[in-house]
């Protein structure tokens, strides 16, 4: 095998594939990346058996072939090389690669390409196609809401529902829930739902190309893996098994008070209150007062800890409905405000112990539900 590639592209490709390299694995070869020629390009693959990332870059292929090399060493070496063509060659029958730039040269010992785990499913028919930019937006608004620990494994996943020309992503940790609808660029092949590990989607969001390149989504025939494909990138992931909670039931459809307030101002007030509530389970309280004749009501955001002190931040708000108060974990509030991408947020409330709904004021495709904190005696 002998190829020449641009240093920047090779370095970038190794970084992307490197996201899937196993940190600690009983299978030593999964600490390697597969480097191989394919269709006149250079393919770089890595997998930790949960997720596999494959990326292709342009290369001048002199002799076809492939090898697996220690991912970290190769990546660090190539990263540090000057921006000049890099040549990678492997002698026939050898398990070592010679990697050279104009003034640096290394021999890196690896293992045979044939021993690398088979990464499935490049050929499956696409079930749906969505454009990269929209998918990234959706991931950004939803994935963080999934559960971090696996007490309930399905909640570590994100539910992806395909129906007609719509894709909906939903995530919840049992205390807050985010759901976002988006459009498919071509209608899906039948309606179906899959649960994709949030970890996979975090990686995907990180490595998807910018711009509106089409991303094909395919599910393997045995329905246990999903593939995200662009021209330069394949991300394959196992799916989470299990039944996702019926989340539509959880989203309140009615409310007794609706508040519209500046997202930035609420974010700032939340942040300030969170300083004061740090030692008090991060409890911040929103007191909502409807306006009088003029119609301008207010939201007072407060935080307090017995030993530290307390704060109040008052915001103007358009309030429809009765006065109310509700307490939240400040993090859940700042999390959602941080991804709304809207000047104003609409809050739909139904009393201190009922789920609160956050929506961007100018878009109907995103809904975020946060359960309040119970404060005994209504504080």
């Amino acid at each position, binding site marked *: 095998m002998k190829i020449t590639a641009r240093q920047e592209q090779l370095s970038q490709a190794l970084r992307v594939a490197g996201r899937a390299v196993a940190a600690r694995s009983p299978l030593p070869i999964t600490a390697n990346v597969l480097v191989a020629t394919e269709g006149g390009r250079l393919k770089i693959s890595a997998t930790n058996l949960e997720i596999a990332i494959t990326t292709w870059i342009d290369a001048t292929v002199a002799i076809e072939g492939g090898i697996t090399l220690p991912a970290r060493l190769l990546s660090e070496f190539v990263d540090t090389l000057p921006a000049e063509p890099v040549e990678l060659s492997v002698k026939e029958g050898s398990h070592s690669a010679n990697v050279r730039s104009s003034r640096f040269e290394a021999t890196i010992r690896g293992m045979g390409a044939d021993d690398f785990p088979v990464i499935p499913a490049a050929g499956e028919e696409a079930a749906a196609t969505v454009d990269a930019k929209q998918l990234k937006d959706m991931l950004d608004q939803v994935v963080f809401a999934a*559960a*971090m*620990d696996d*007490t*309930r494994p399905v*909640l570590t996943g994100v539910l992806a529902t395909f129906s007609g020309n719509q894709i909906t992503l939903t995530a*919840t*940790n*049992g*205390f*807050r*829930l985010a759901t976002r609808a988006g459009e498919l660029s071509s209608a899906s092949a039948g309606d179906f739902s899959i649960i994709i590990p949030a970890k996979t989607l975090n990686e995907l969001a990180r490595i998807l190309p910018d711009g509106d390149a089409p991303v094909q989504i395919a599910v393997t025939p045995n329905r246990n893996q999903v593939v995200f494909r662009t021209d330069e990138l394949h991300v394959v992931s196992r799916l989470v098994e299990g039944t996702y*909670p019926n989340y539509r039931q*959880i989203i309140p459809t009615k409310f007794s008070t609706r508040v519209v307030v500046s997202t930035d101002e609420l974010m700032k007030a939340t942040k300030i209150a969170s300083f004061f509530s740090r030692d008090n*389970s991060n*409890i911040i309280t929103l007191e909502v007062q409807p306006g009088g004749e003029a119609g301008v009501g207010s939201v007072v955001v407060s935080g307090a800890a017995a030993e530290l002190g307390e704060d109040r931040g008052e915001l103007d708000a358009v309030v429809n409905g009765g006065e109310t108060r509700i307490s939240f*974990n400040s993090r859940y509030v700042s999390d959602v405000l941080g991804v709304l991408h809207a000047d104003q947020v609409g809050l739909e409330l139904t009393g201190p*112990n009922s*789920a609160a709904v956050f929506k961007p004021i100018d878009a109907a495709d995103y809904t975020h*539900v946060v*359960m*309040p*904190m*119970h*404060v*005994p*005696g*209504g504080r």
Partner: protein
Amino acid sequence: MHVDLDAFYSSIEQRDHPEWRGKPVIVGGDPDARGVVATASYEARRFGVHSAMPTRTAMRLCPQGILVHPRFSVYGEVSGRLRALFLELTPLIEPISLDEAFLDVSALLPSPLEAEPVARELKARIRQETELTASVGVAANKLVAKVASDREKPDGLTIVPPGGEAAFLGPLPVRRLFGIGPRSEERLRGAGIERVDQLAGAAPEWLVARFGQTGLEWQRMAQGIDDRPVTPDRELKQISRERTFPRDIGRREELQGIVEALAEELRPTLQNAPPARTLTLKLRYPDLSIATRRRTPGVVITEDTLKPGALQLFDEGWDGRPLRLMGLGISNFVLEPEGQLPLFDDGGVE
């Protein structure tokens, strides 16, 4: 809102024993054993019987009275049902005892003036669900609501309009105010004050000179001022059962049997009360000295650990002398914690 069941224990006994209806029923301990009256039915009250009176005295006043041993497990169960009814109105319930509670309904009703249909409905539901009657007092604060519920007992409903508190309390004897017992009543009478309005109108300097700071507190109450919030289950410090013995008991087996019986009486309470962390055994010797042993095992007391725990306390605490009284109590309650509410019924986990 203050809800007070009418002659709770004896009404339950009359409900469950139709042949006792209309007759004087006295729920209490054994007259030959220093027992006291827990509740007397209204029929028995006409003979002058009242709660906390020695059963022996009660039976002398009312010889035809039907003496019934209390069935605390039944009362506890009814109390749980009452609580469920209260919960339909508000989560802010402050139970005072099995048969009495304060409800904060201010979120439901902006003013006591609008409370009548709600209070009537509650009374009707109580009657429907438990076949018992309750007296309800509605007012802007706890002090006045409690006095009001007592006003038209039994089966009463008294609503005190906001601003009318002082006028409502004024003509009543000071004894009706919470915290003014027989001794304080006596001291006040000595100073020429018998009715609430006299106390309300007294010169504050004079009250301070005469009764100290307490005088001012009494006056605030007399004026119908009370800003104590309804604190759910906060008042619940200890739930206990006690038994005063007919004769002093020194036999270990017999005493152990009583410990077991007390644990049995507490058991239903354990289900209804918030979880408790501490178990306390009280022992009183004939010389009236009291020994208490308490244990906080680090986990909440459960039905399984109640009896063995109580017996262990007895083994540790009893010095071998005969006893006159034993009591067993649970305390150190775990109140509903602050916390993140889950989205799903099966409880979210993170």
